[in-house]
């Protein structure tokens, strides 16, 4: 072996007569498996093979850890990372020849599975967002960073899904079908600086349209991935801005939600997952990327959007795809308004009571749609008279 284990030696006899229980990953031979021994249930990981020797990292384990690993909630590295592990050298015939007891930190990084890698390829998360910054680790992640990661993933995917399903929505495709493309179930959290992994909804959770097969959702998700990949490549590409084709405003707004802020603990953000065609690519967004995205977005907004304030009545409301149509407005136009989930209670109330409402936000000059950032109700007649009294 070209790496030495720097840990106290351990009695190799303890590994005699081990009985293999379950093979979890087999290639040429078993590479990850569980076994039973006098030391209890063990997880074996074949870290290296050289010169007639196999070197395993062996961790104490239990059924719960194995189930989490098999369902893609826990990565292989996390499953191996127990308070202690053994390093075990065996001959090719399986005969143990040397053992050490230490921790996972005693192994060189390239002898371990990469952080976050799952047991089987199909368990790899569909979308992973990782916030990177000094001091981000278990027990030290501020709530604002957690919110940033969750909001970033959800809002960016929603922006792109909105574009992919523009035509489908017009044809009456249900909003709750579309919602599952951005409101993804969480697969796991890792302290690596801080990352959240998302998976596709399971078959039982899927909301399918009439006559729709789950595979069709896969192709639509691929479409979202392609657009996101296109946006990320644009953002990361170091071409001078004047040589770069301008990016669509929806994609810029998706990027805006993903890039790291100019100040604060998060210095960069990494994205990966099966959503991307280049399945194992990692995209890193830095503060330089943020500047670039904000500059481009500023330019696009000047020509395509304006800040607006309109008063009217909410006549049509979609709770699944938070949006309403504002009618009888003071600018005499109907406006489709999209709003953040936290405004739902306010919007529902004005919808149910027919109160006039003033909304502020960014209006798309071309189609009059408004991205709502503020909702204020006009006081009703009774409210006005009671406050006057």
């Amino acid at each position, binding site marked *: 072996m070209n790496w030495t284990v720097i840990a106290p030696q351990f009695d190799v006899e303890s590994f005699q007569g081990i009985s293999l229980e379950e*093979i*979890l*990953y*087999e*290639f*040429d*031979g*078993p*590479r990850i498996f569980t076994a039973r021994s006098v030391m209890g249930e063990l997880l074996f990981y*074949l*870290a*290296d*093979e050289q010169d*007639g020797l*196999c070197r395993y990292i062996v961790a104490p384990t239990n059924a719960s850890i194995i189930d989490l690993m098999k369902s893609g909630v826990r990565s*292989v590295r996390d499953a191996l990372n127990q308070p202690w592990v053994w390093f075990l050298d065996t001959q*090719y*015939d*399986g005969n143990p020849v040397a053992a050490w007891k230490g921790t996972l930190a005693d192994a060189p990084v*390239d*002898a*371990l*599975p*990469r952080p976050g*890698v799952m*047991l*089987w*390829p*199909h368990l*790899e998360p569909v979308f992973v967002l990782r916030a990177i910054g000094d001091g981000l680790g278990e027990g030290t992640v501020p709530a604002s960073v957690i919110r940033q990661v969750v909001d970033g993933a959800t809002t960016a995917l929603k922006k792109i899904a909105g574009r992919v399903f523009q035509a489908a929505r017009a044809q009456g495709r249900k909003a709750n079908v579309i919602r599952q493309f951005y409101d993804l179930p969480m697969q796991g959290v890792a302290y690596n600086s801080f990352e959240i992994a998302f998976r596709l909804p399971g078959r039982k959770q899927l909301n399918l349209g009439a006559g729709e097969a789950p595979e069709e959702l896969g192709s639509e998700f691929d479409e979202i991935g392609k657009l996101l990949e296109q946006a990320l490549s644009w953002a990361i590409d170091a071409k001078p801005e004047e040589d770069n084709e301008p990016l669509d405003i929806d994609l810029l707004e998706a990027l805006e939600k993903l890039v790291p802020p100019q100040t604060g603990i998060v210095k960069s953000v990494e994205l990966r997952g099966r959503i991307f065609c280049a*399945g*194992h690519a990692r995209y890193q967004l830095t503060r330089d990327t943020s500047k670039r995205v904000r500059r481009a977005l500023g330019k696009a907004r000047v020509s395509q959007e304006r800040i607006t304030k309109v008063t009217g009545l909410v006549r049509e409301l979609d709770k699944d795809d938070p949006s309403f149509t504002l009618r009888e407005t003071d600018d005499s136009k109907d406006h489709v308004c999209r709003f953040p989930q936290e405004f739902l209670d306010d919007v529902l109330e004005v919808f149910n009571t027919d109160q006039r409402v003033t909304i502020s936000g960014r209006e798309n000059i071309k189609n009059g749609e408004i991205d709502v950032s503020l909702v204020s109700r006009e006081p009703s007649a009774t409210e006005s008279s009671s406050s006057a009294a």
Partner: protein
Amino acid sequence: MQFPESWPPECPPANAQDAQGECFRVVSNNPPGADDFKSYSELGAAPNANPCKRVGLSLLRTLDDAIHQTELFPKHGKLICRGELNSGHGKTLLTKGTLPTHTTWWPYEGIDRVAPFVCVGAQ
């Protein structure tokens, strides 16, 4: 073309088919050599394993699965080779177990196992 006489009887199994199509194998040498394509039986490894599987070689059918393997076992090689197999290379069988594209390849005796493969990139 034939399989080695030393192989167990009924190996490859009757349901194995003529080798065909795209496949991938992660190797540790660049360029890959004969050592990267040795079976467990030739290495003397895992003597108690299924004797017919021991004389075969594992392959994967998708690049994504091969990339995943390099990330799961970094010490076992970072170079991914892509092969295009045909009936002259032996028999194969989808032996998926826990890996849906895992395929066992039983190469004919004496063929150059490296020849059908080209490296498509290192991770």
